[in-house]
């Protein structure tokens, strides 16, 4: 009993309580949205309740981790600066801010040309996985939250389905036809994207020397295996009900559900968390754009411009919050982080000469 209490106390001590509060609030909002969006659970599909619980748990963990992440001094600084620059009046002349945002979103989040430059094969694999996952999420979440649901519509002359979103009838869909095929097979399409994507990335991971040198099983292979298991079991489900009259369906459905739940619960902890983290790169674009025509920080040793002045200033503050003291030895003049990387290396070599009293043995 005492041990249990101690363990619990230990875990409580490990938690970052302000983030628990933030995550709880946001999760409560999500639950509220589920209840309201499904019209008091009227449109809620009870068969999917396992997924819903997993989604809510994963959402809590994602909110928690994101919130903890934002408390780190460099992250906090970037976050605040990003928003501040985004809304800075100077950047709204000629609508520059939205244009910067548009370009950054397109290049960094949608097209991801930097991944292409890492390797075209990697880009293709990543694109397939990313697009497939987004499609699958876009279908799964509204369904398991009861935000979208389908009802039987007309029987004569053709069978139709009524699509209701948040309980409002928005569309009547003829059962036959390409569009409804697409709607009902969206997840199949998604697995046909994710599976080849996983294959390409796996192949790279096994064959490419740069990748094999640095990868780790839990970090790099586990998410791929999870994605594969989810997509493949989903695909088998479709084969079972569409072509094999439901052969093995119940067991497959359970297996698929557990794999999805595992993936959802992995989302906040492993590599896939970058989906939520990555938009921070937009802040970098703002940093650059906002400082492009300002005086940069110049290295006092080499004279080269090496960073935006705003960044060396911000960093100085951040380093202070991290309990580093890189200020000048007598408190006046540039801090160490205001010397360029090359300037630092030169002064280090010089410090070494001094330590050797300029005499090399």
């Amino acid at each position, binding site marked *: 009993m005492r041990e249990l209490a101690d363990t619990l106390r230990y875990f409580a001590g490990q938690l970052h309580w302000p983030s628990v509060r933030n995550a709880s609030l946001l999760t409560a909002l999500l639950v509220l949205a589920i209840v309201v969006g499904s019209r008091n659970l009227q449109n809620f599909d009870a068969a999917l309740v396992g997924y819903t619980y997993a989604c809510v748990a994963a959402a809590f963990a994602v909110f928690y981790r994101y919130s903890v992440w934002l408390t780190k001094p460099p992250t906090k600084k970037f976050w605040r600066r990003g928003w501040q620059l985004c809304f800075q009046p100077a950047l709204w002349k000629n609508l520059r801010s939205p244009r910067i945002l548009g370009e950054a979103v397109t290049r960094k989040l949608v097209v991801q040309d*930097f991944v292409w430059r890492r390797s075209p094969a990697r880009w293709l694999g990543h694109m397939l996985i990313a697009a497939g996952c987004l499609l699958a999420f876009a279908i799964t979440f509204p369904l398991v939250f009861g935000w979208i649901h389908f009802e039987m519509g007309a029987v004569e002359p053709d069978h139709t389905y009524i699509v209701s979103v948040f309980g409002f009838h928005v569309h009547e869909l003829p059962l036959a036809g390409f569009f409804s095929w697409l709607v009902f097979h969206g997840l199949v399409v998604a697995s046909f994207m994710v599976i080849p994507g996983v294959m390409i990335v796996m192949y790279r991971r096994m064959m490419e020397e740069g990748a094999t040198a640095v990868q780790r099983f839990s970090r790099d292979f586990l998410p791929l295996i999870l994605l594969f298991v989810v997509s493949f079991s989903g695909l088998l489900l479709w084969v079972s009900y569409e072509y094999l009259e439901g052969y093995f369906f119940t067991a497959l459905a359970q297996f698929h559900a557990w794999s999805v739940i595992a993936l959802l619960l992995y989302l906040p902890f492993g590599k896939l968390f970058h989906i939520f983290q990555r938009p921070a790169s937009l802040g970098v674009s703002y940093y650059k754009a906002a400082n492009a025509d300002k005086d940069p920080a110049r290295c006092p040793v080499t004279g080269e411009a090496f960073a935006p002045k705003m960044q060396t200033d911000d*960093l100085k503050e951040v380093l202070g919050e991290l309990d580093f003291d890189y200020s000048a030895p007598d408190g006046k003049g540039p801090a160490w982080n205001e010397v360029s*990387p090359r300037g630092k290396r030169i002064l280090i070599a010089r410090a070494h000469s001094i330590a050797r009293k300029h005499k090399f043995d």
Partner: protein
Amino acid sequence: MSAPVKEFFIDFQRCIGCNACVAGCSECHTHRGKPMVSVDKVDPAHSAQTAPMVCMHCKEPTCALSCPADAIKMDENGIVHSSLKPRCIACRNCEIACPFGVPKISEEIQQMQKCDMCFDRTSAGKKPMCTTVCPTGALFYGTMEEMKRLRPHSKPINKWRFGKQVIETKLWVMVPHDVDEVVVDWPELLNGASGPIDLAVKLKEYFEKHGVPDPEIREPLPESMPEARPDETEEAEFL
């Protein structure tokens, strides 16, 4: 019996500026064509002195702590790794914060890469690439005992002082026996031109006149580069 622990030692005084380490490092597939080790001319106007710099693998890495994306991780062996590709947003914080001027940012691929002590090699008992090609032993990988035997006039230390900040590193630097920490000072920068004519001022003038030299290899090596890794078994012991 477990294998003896090997350490990485830098002996600045031995560097002859041959750039073999730079070339050796560039061959690695993880950053093909881009060296992670720097060799700088210390005072090109007045001397031929050069100095190599690899990641010192700080025990409390400033780079990792100043990374907003949590992209830099230290492993169980104390090796501080290149940024994780999915996380790094190429913000340059680490590059500006690292006290040793180590991380390299590639805007092209939106990633910071840095020396990771060839952990793929060292974890398999091999030496880091640069130490296999350094002809003078300025970059050396071996046991503490070996080093003591080879360089009796120097001793390895791993403590640095930047102004008030003390940094301890995994890597060792060779200094005379009466030195316990390398003190990196930059007081002369405060005096500017009115102070004693010293390195920083001279350098500044030099750079202003001649432009900043760029020792980095910018041209990527051809894709079909032949394998030129030295055979570990045939490797000479540099004394």
